[in-house]
């Protein structure tokens, strides 16, 4: 009995996995690991649990450790549960120059949590991240794959308000 028994991608996602593997020469399916981990995170509640990683390992014919070491290296992979809406605020130079600290402070007050934490109702996780390539439209934050740029506190309020009422989960893909 393995922990992966009840974890399975939808048929649609499995087809995507197969399509991804075909991009590489035979025997190089390990190259599909990052794309497949993204699919796994999107499909299994926004984070990568050990059983989910084991499942990905079995799909790509890898040892589980090969998946763990990769998942723990890249900052977009969450190894802990996150809120339905993951807010990632850039705080590197250009965004800081134009007020990223104020955005973070405002969100902390508004959500009643510190950066790195999740609200008790599981709705929001607040995270600060390093430069997302949006320096010319600073300050910015990312929710799912969506860039929110040229932020003001009012804009932040509006975006958070929108997510308050949303049932779905923010996702990159």
């Amino acid at each position: 009995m393995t922990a992966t028994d009840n974890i399975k991608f939808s048929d649609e996602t499995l087809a995507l996995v197969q399509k991804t593997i075909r991009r590489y020469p035979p025997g190089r399916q390990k190259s599909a690991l990052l794309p497949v981990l993204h699919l796994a995170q999107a499909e299994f509640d926004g984070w990568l649990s050990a059983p989910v990683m084991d499942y990905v390992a079995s799909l790509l014919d890898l040892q589980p450790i090969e998946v763990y070491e990769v998942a723990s290296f890249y900052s977009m992979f969450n190894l802990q549960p996150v809120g339905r809406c993951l807010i990632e605020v850039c705080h590197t130079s250009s965004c800081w120059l134009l007020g990223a600290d104020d955005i973070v402070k405002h969100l902390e007050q508004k959500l009643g949590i510190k950066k790195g934490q999740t609200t008790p109702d599981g709705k929001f996780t607040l995270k600060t991240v390093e430069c997302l390539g949006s320096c010319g439209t600073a300050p910015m934050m990312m929710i799912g794959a969506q860039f929110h740029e040229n932020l003001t506190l009012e804009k932040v309020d509006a975006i958070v308000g929108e997510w308050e009422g949303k049932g779905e989960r923010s996702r990159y893909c």
Partner: protein
Amino acid sequence: MTLQFACGYDKKSETRQSMSKKILLKNDHIPGINTLEVYRKHGGYESLKKALSMAPDAIVEEVKKSGLRGRGGAGFPTGMKWSFLAKPEGVPRYLVCNADESEPGTFKDRYLMERIPHLLVEGMIVSSFALGANTSYIYIRGEYFYILRILEKAIDEAYAAGLLGKNILGSGFDHDCYVQIGAGAYICGEETALLESLEGKRGNPRLKPPFPAVKGLWDCPTVVNNVETIAAVVPIVEMGGDTYAGIGIGKSAGTKLISASGHINKPGVYEIELGVPVEEFIYSDEYCGGIRNGKELKAVVAGGSSVPILPKHLILKTAAGEPRLMSYESLGDGGFATGTMLGSGGFIVMDEDTSIVKNLYTFARFYHHESCGQCSPCREGTGWMERIIKKILDGKGTLADIDLLWDVQSKIEGKTICPLGEAAAWPVAAAIRHFRHEFEEYVTRPEGIREVRHYYRLNRLEPA
């Protein structure tokens, strides 16, 4: 157009018309240019047609003649890099596009891919034909997921039109191009870390040699080029290497995309002909439009976070008093003592209110976060530097800490497998070199820290 700033640049205005030259972004304003139909209507894929009628080596020769240098930051001659590619019998070769753009202050590749995705796709096919690569990958940073969709759409359109796949335009050349997504790691912009990541591993840079040109992706000969570099191959094939080499200034041939950000009136991506005076770039309405809120310029990081920061007097003029130009050579004039680098073209402008120490802290935190951890000097040194700067910033530092900081940075450079070590050390060294007084102020007058305006408060940014 009149230039309103003092320092004598009005006399340059006569040559300005020829200086503002758009090659890559000449069509970026055209509605629908992201689609194949509109792109082709404006001359798209003509360069590919021409390339397919040439001998592959002749294309490499044109790129050599063009003087094109790697636009990702290192500035290595592209044609030379291509000519290093090993061609053993029966072994596939690969072209990999580095779209991992993560150097703080840099967002030009994102702009180019978002607006004109087919320019990159065409560049991938032309370059692959020149290199004899039947497969190529565009490795894009994970945070640019929405651009992955744009690129995939462009690639699908190209396949449907016979511009990708088997026997492209009847030439007998087969090529497949795929987009690979990253997952948040600056280090994957280093070419060997990128290849590791593309192989499904942690982004730990490889020891060189062997270089990717000999042993790259899956141990096969591989060329890794930046998005802008590959895009520039399209106009080079179109106009010929000699014509391209005539654009720009000296060994800084062609145009460069500059990502301008910070305290300027008009942040954004600008394509400049290399050689535009820095002062013109900052103050002219054609580019950055001057410092916002009528403030004074304090300092500039000219080529992405890893290049040395320069104070106003050294970014506008060289130590010898010559106007500083936006070129590899002029920005590098004076070495690191008084100069900097063009790097990736990530141009971050800071006004008089900016705390250089706090800005440096954001860089130090960045490099600490992004170090892959493989080499001790970088893994330990980046964290150590971050902690010292934080201590100074919090008003708990001593004068000896400033010397310690200098000492730590000096022991990272040249002692790591990849250049992330240097990238982390250089900004620290430059900040102390040019702004030591500011570090000292944090130490000697901690009570004054509250007075230091770290940043604009958002409510002051809002229009009245």
